[in-house]
């Protein structure tokens, strides 16, 4: 199974992510793109600041990709996460999964984004006009 796991502070490249999982055996490719929204809880977002514990985050993303490959018959997984300062509309994460049959790709893609959000040591701070909040930090 093809795996391409990256964290970097430059814009993510959708075409490259999709091409990586587009081998001739992949009939279905499922892609999740996480963008910075302009609003959270009714407040205007000025920017987001993403921070990662890179070494561990890459390792956790690798684990997720490997787990997905054990749970579903997939041919490739790409997970690219961006860090640094992002503005509204910027892409924070791209997940692309290829499979011979679409349901495997769909289920695996969902598993990967859901698990990434709960286990991978990456943090975002939302900056508003009048303050800032580390997302999910407090109960």
């Amino acid at each position, binding site marked *: 199974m093809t795996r391409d796991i990256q964290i970097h502070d430059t814009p993510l490249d959708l075409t490259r992510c999709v091409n990586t999982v587009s081998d001739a055996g992949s009939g279905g490719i499922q892609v999740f793109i996480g963008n910075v929204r302009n609003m959270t809880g009714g407040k205007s977002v000025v920017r987001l600041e993403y*921070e990662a514990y890179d070494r561990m985050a890459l390792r956790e993303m690798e684990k997720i990709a490997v787990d997905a490959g054990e749970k579903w018959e997939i041919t490739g997984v790409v997970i690219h996460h961006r860090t640094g300062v992002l503005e509204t509309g910027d892409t924070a994460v791209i997940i692309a999964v290829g499979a011979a049959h679409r349901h495997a790709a769909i289920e695996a893609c969902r598993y990967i984004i859901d698990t990434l959000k709960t286990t991978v040591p990456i*943090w975002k701070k939302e900056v508003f006009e009048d303050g800032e909040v580390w997302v999910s*930090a407090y109960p």
Partner: protein
Amino acid sequence: MKIEILAFGIAREICGGRLIEMDVREGIDTDGLRLLLTEAFPSLSGLAQLSIAVNGEYVIGAVVLNPGDEIAIIPPVSGG
């Protein structure tokens, strides 16, 4: 022994930096470290969760810390 602790996100802001140095007794485990940290930085107690990672792996339960371990405190993650 002297240990270094990596802090990220809101934990970095609470502790005042990415790298915290502490002098701890030999044989201390991650539960002991957690106590020392919340005494030193009481605001850490208010977080929804505070995990500890040793050498890039989440600690489940408690493990004894050894010199040279890469130790990190992990506030609630929010990637994606």
